[in-house]
């Protein structure tokens, strides 16, 4: 499109609060907007977005579209896409940023294909090329074994940003911007799929994504029973338990324990890995951890290249002793 300019970020606001992933996108978008000297707009989508647009301005946006329709009360990819397409046509941006969260995994590629443009998928970093002003995106490929630098040839240029790779800016209530009420006419009957049931399998205790300390187990545990020991250790530390894909595929723990490329992305302060080899697909979900501990009997395991602290040893001996010492330390 001619004269397409500015950056448009899509943000969601469950319960009227701007999601943390949207705040992260605004941080990424702000740095692009400043580098290009362009406007940063946000589109907040829902049936009632409350003051989330104002929150988005406090988090860095120059302009906030409140994209509303009664049909947008619950997330539905077909209906959200329709709203996104409408606001993209109105805003006519040069760059669109979308979070690669559970919804963005389907929305970003579908929007790109609908607009006939390319998508830089799962980006860790986006920047503006100093010469051309085009978007440059760093994205992991081959399960994180390599990084590809890609750019889009068409406009709008779309990038999906991996959650928790950008730090949100502190909210500044003094920032000013324009809130644009943008009601959209969405036909709920256009949805091609129907959700007929929702089944919760929530793990007890603190959520894996929110935990400050996570203890994860892998293939080397050999079965489901050892996870009760990890639960005990995590419990003492006020943390949560995760797992590698190998442990999930073996049926030892439910799928929502999985940390990694196709599981959850976590950024705890402390990540204790037990009998996990540290394949790049696993590291893709935890490399933002502040400190990683590796407990593995194979001194050559890749996890020792990623960890700050390591114990080369048998988890069956290490975990009980670690748990006991932690108990003494935390209860003294």
């Amino acid at each position: 499109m001619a004269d397409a300019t500015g950056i448009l970020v899509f943000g969601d606001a469950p319960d009227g609060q701007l999601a943390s992933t949207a705040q992260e996108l605004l941080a990424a978008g702000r740095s692009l907007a400043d580098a290009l000297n362009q406007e940063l707009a946000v589109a907040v989508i829902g049936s009632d977005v409350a003051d989330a647009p104002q929150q988005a301005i406090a988090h860095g946006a120059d302009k906030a579209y409140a994209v509303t329709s009664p049909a947008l009360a619950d997330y539905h990819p077909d209906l959200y896409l329709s709203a996104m397409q409408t606001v993209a046509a109105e805003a006519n941006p040069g760059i669109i940023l979308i979070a690669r969260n559970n919804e963005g995994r389907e929305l970003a590629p579908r929007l790109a294909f609908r607009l006939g443009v390319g998508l830089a998928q799962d980006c860790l970093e986006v920047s503006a090329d100093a010469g051309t002003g085009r978007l440059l995106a760093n994205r992991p490929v081959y399960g994180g074994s390599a990084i590809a630098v890609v750019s889009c040839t068409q406009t709008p240029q779309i990038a999906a940003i991996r959650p928790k790779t950008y730090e949100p800016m502190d909210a500044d209530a003094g920032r000013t911007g324009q809130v644009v009420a943008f009601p959209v006419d969405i036909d709920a009957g256009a949805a091609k799929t129907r959700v007929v049931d929702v089944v919760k399998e929530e793990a007890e205790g603190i959520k894996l994504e929110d935990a400050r300390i996570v203890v994860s187990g892998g293939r080397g545990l050999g079965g489901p029973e050892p996870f009760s020991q990890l639960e005990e250790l995590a419990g003492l530390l006020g943390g949560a338990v995760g797992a590698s894909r190998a442990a999930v595929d073996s049926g030892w723990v439910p799928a929502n324990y999985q940390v990694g490329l196709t599981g959850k992305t976590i950024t705890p302060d402390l990540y204790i890995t037990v009998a996990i080899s540290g394949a790049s697909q696993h590291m893709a979900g935890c490399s933002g951890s502040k400190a990683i501990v590796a407990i593995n009997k194979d001194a050559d395991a890749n996890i020792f290249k990623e960890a700050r602290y390591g114990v080369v040893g048998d988890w069956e001996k290490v975990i009980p002793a670690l748990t006991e010492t932690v108990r003494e330390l935390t209860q003294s």
Partner: protein
Amino acid sequence: MPVNICVLAKQVVDPEMPAAAFRIDPDARQVVPPANIPPVVNGFDENAVEAALQIKDEQGANITVISSGTTFALDVMKKPLSMGADELVLLQDDAFANSVDSFFTVQLLTAAINKLGGFDLIICGRQASDWDNAQVPLGVAETLGMACITLGKKVDVQDSKVVVERLAPDGFEVVEADMPALVTVSNELGQPRYPTLRGIMAATRKRPTVWTTGDLDIDDARLEPRLTLHDLFVPERDQDCEIIEGDDDIDAARRLALRLREDRLI
């Protein structure tokens, strides 16, 4: 009526290869396939074949597997046939070297699907383990205007609709759509079955249909690249691991706890 199913499958370098065998050619901006490690069918695509076979077991289906690439190891790509799929269509063209660009791949695949007369159900792996783009299935659904359900862990066909258990961060949801529809599946679907001896024999006799870009009806404008690859590199790891040693594993574990306490991590 048997369900007419298409599975999209990709040949990839074995993601289980040792990390030391992973090499890139920085000038060509490509991964160098390891010499002694054969390629494999993308793992999630094997899950897709399994999902299709479960429907075939249940109520009968004709399963066509479509793959696109520059070259194929035929014995590898025949694995879905030996598992029980019926037909194999290979879209082979040097143009596929630009595998970073999902848009291009989708043009080829959708043209082939149209040439084959369309399908009731298209099942795909959630992403390929090489470029991890997770775009092609969604692009195929958009381009063909099909209903699209992602991240399935169970796929059932009931009369004219497909019913999918779809992974959610805190459990799963049951989503349905009228066919034609496209579904992506994840490893939570379960282990794909092993080929049987009979399946392997049958697959040996089957000849794949091979088409190049020229065999497909595609508007030239849609073949222009949408993405450019500027660089491909192996990230450096700068973490120095402090190995905590002790008299034995128990002593090392105690020292680890004390070290974490000292650094105020616990």
